């Protein structure tokens, strides 16, 4: 390690120590394990992860319900997802995530609607199973084209001892449609992550176990699926277009713009392609064991990773697909050259600090590198150790790593490391903009997108330039102040 690196590392460590100083001792010791500096040739980031958040620190994390209803199940468009319990959870997660879909909302699709059993005190005291049964009847009555129903449990369900599985079984037999009970109460686990896992398990137990792929679906040797793409701003579409261009056939999207039939048909795929490993690796592993379907992680952020992923995907198929992949990469090269020629001079050397969830704290790093930018800090809301193992592939030595960062830590880290851009979520956005820091939301793409694929990279580059080079940032200081 060079002297300069050593000095930077010491300075970063001093910063970490200084920031942690604000905590009471017990919490300081716990938080210290979640913050690290990336070492050279490290296998993981050497930070503790996937453990309980410390109370009272302003964690940015959500809950299991958010992971199941908000992430995995919610985007399945031809089903109705009941927020089962009090009114709030479904209200706050109502139509906020930009999981784009095409359908007639209210008639054959329900993605931007909010269905709840709106628990009252009597439901808590006497139990909500009867109400749930009635909710299901009313849904089936008012929305006859609904293809299935999921029951997304909120905190009280698991605490009052309701038997939603029994209701689901009985009602499913009665109405002749799949009903999936999901035990994703918000107090389970430590973050959104367990909600993803629970939701995956319910697809295994209540979809795969109870239905067969549609016989009408004829298979081809080129059938793949997109798993773990929520079609935020249309991401799955700008990914699908590339897979189809290289000659593959995408038979299912999980779960952005997805349908119940697509879930059911997935066991017919030749390969499952996983974008968000964190939220859907469980079902991919299950299908590998049960149906012998291999799975592969890919990364469609930024041209370097897109080309590498297209080649890796193509390598699983024949020469024709491999040749197609080369042709597609070549076809988009002029677009990418044009984008980089336009935006790299404006972004070269700019520093970014990331804090997101799922796959993005690592997957977007090379997209920034493609634009000449540098990622000086990154962290995950709800990663496990296998995410941190996958991170060192992308990040450079000396990168500050923060797991389940608190609002306090993040503010201080940004204040001291002074990046040119902060890329995180809606709760962080205005904090940093007040500080005069350019900011992009990296959950919702700040209402832009898509960011996946070649078409998406052009938008990503445009947006990063817009954030960093908007003249408003020159106005934050009054001339007399």
């Amino acid at each position, binding site marked *: 390690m060079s002297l300069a690196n050593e000095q930077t590392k010491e300075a970063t460590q001093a910063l970490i120590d200084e920031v942690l100083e604000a905590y009471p001792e017990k919490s300081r010791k716990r938080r210290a394990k979640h913050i690290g500096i990336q070492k050279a040739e490290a296998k993981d980031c050497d930070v503790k992860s996937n453990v309980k958040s410390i109370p009272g620190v302003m964690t940015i994390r959500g809950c299991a319900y958010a992971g199941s209803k908000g992430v995995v199940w919610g985007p399945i468009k031809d089903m109705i997802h009941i927020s089962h319990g009090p009114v709030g959870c479904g209200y706050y997660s109502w139509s906020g995530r930009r999981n784009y879909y095409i359908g007639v909302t209210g008639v054959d699709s329900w993605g931007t609607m909010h269905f709840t059993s709106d628990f009252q005190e009597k439901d808590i005291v006497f139990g909500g199973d009867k109400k749930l049964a009635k909710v299901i009847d009313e849904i089936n009555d008012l929305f006859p084209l609904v293809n299935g129903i999921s029951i997304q449990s909120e905190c009280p369900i698991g605490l009052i001892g309701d038997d939603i599985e029994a209701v689901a079984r009985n009602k499913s037999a009665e109405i002749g449609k799949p009903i999936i009970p999901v035990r994703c109460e918000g107090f389970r686990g430590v973050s959104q992550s367990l909600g993803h896992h629970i939701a995956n398990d319910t697809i295994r137990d209540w979809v795969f176990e109870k239905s067969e792929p549609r016989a009408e679906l004829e298979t081809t040797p080129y059938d793949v699926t997109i798993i773990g793409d929520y079609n935020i701003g*249309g991401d799955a579409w700008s990914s699908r277009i590339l897979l189809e261009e290289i000659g593959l056939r995408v038979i299912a999207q999980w779960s952005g713009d997805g349908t119940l039939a697509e879930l059911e048909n997935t066991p017919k795929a030749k390969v499952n392609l996983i974008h968000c490993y964190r939220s859907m690796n469980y079902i991919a592993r299950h299908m590998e064991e049960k149906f012998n379907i291999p799975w592969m992680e890919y990364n469609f952020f930024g041209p370097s990773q897109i080309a590498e992923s297209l080649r890796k995907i193509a390598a699983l198929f024949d020469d024709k697909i491999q040749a197609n992949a080369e042709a597609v990469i070549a076809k988009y090269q002029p677009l990418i050259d044009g984008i980089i020629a336009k935006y790299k001079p404006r972004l070269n050397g700019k520093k970014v600090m990331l804090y997101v969830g799922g796959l993005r704290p690592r997957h977007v790093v090379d997209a920034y590198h493609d634009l000449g930018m540098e990622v000086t800090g990154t962290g995950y809301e709800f990663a496990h150790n296998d995410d941190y193992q996958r991170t060192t592939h992308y990040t450079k030595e000396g990168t500050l790593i923060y797991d389940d960062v608190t609002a306090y830590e993040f503010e201080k880290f940004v204040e001291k490391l002074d990046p040119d851009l902060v890329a995180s979520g809606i709760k962080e956005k205005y904090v940093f903009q007040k500080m005069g820091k350019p900011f992009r939301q990296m959950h919702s793409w700040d209402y832009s997108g898509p960011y996946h694929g070649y078409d998406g990279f052009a938008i990503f580059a445009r947006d990063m330039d817009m954030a960093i080079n908007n003249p408003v940032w020159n106005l934050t200081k009054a001339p007399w102040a």
Partner: protein
Amino acid sequence: MPQNPEKVIDHLQLFREPEYKEIFASKRANFEFGHPDEEVARVAEWTKSEEYKEKNFSREALTINPTKACQPLGAVFAAQGFEGTLPFVHGSQGCVAYYRSHLTRHFKEPNSAVSSSMTEDAAVFGGLNNMIDGLANTYSLYQPKMIAVLTTCMAEVIGDDLQGFIVNAKNKDSIPQDFPAPHAHTPAFVGSHVTGYDNMVKGILNYFWDAPDAAARVEDDGINIIPGFDGYAVGNNRELKRIFGLFGINATIISDVSDVFDTPTDGKFRLYDGGTTIDQVKAAKNAKATISLQEYCSPQTLSYIKDKGQDVTKLNYPVGVAATDEFLVKLAELTGKPVPAELTLERGRLVDAIADSHTHIHGKRFAIFGDPDTTYGLSRFLLEMGAEPVHILSTSGSKKWEKQVQKLLDSSPFGASGKAYGGKDLWHLRSLLFTDPVDYMIGNSYGKYLERDTKIPLIRLTYPIFDRHHHHRYPTWGYQGGLNVLVRILDKILDDMDNHTNIAGETDYSFDLIR
């Protein structure tokens, strides 16, 4: 290839390109196994029918697209209106992420609140340790002047005793013994965000007014104002302060979020800014009177204050001429000061504006949805301009609210076709809009889906507004606020007229330059 470095296109245009249209069609045809187009069209038509409406209105268990959130949202909002105060939400942590996101998406401002992050073990053993550690962490990290404790439904279901827990935490030195930590139980399965607002304000007043060392009440000339949960709080609270200034009175706004929800971008993040000070809260006990500007955000608080011996008044969102008159007359009566000439002039100007524009508003039929007081106030303003409120809907609305709105409708010939729908939701409203259409709709951003289905133009005037920016910075209360509301309504009506007459060669006749 649709994308081009010269002019990068995003989702707004990208997916309309032929390459994408083709993949949408093939996905739908080959993989989605959806219903045939004719069947979808048939059901879509059926959802607009009288038969469907009846079915829809006979729902007993299912709520679809409600206009209400849960108690803690209102309690967090209320707590944030006190100086240096951090809401501490005892229960599951995901809830707090939701409240913060929700308020941030409306106000486009940071929103700070913490959670005690209870998980499965706390569900079994109770959340006392979370409270003890949590308060200590919050106190050290964020250095608040006050921590306002409230609950999620998880903590309520397992029956955690907030008061006892806070005492316990103080005994463990999490926070100093004399550190203000008021609390409110805010179960999500009772009432809605307006109830939570009420509970939190009452909890904070109660903490200071009934403290063991609190001085006995000695009535003074003070006036307290409780604004209630309000998406326009930034503009409205500042308008209230301007009105007090013109009157020359020192009224206390109890819970004032107008500064913390409108901090400058000047290089510094302010976790706290402005708000009602603790000294003001203590002194508010001695005030001679309290006026609540939103009755349904304050029933318990007002009853508590009344018991202390204060004169209490409840209003229902003072928007428009008569509602503002009523508010100012009350202020004059309580303070013994005349309504300032400046406000009388402003009143005249608002009446002038209505007179200038009444031709476009008179007889127009409206649907209005939102919180109980907001919908009442806006209906009243419409009536006084000669518009007809037809469907007035609030999921938080009670039977009492329905009666109150009916009484208002009965007071004007323009209310003859109106009806209040308490406890109903936006899917009910969709049926009403198809079976008994109106000209315009006043509501929040979620109304855009109704606008898409029914083509009835939406005027965004209730909480939350996520898809338009900065309206919350302008008041809706007082005569100035009335003017803003009038202009928002008029702009939509006039745009709508243009949009219906802009086909060259066909409707040139009504496409008037001067309206």
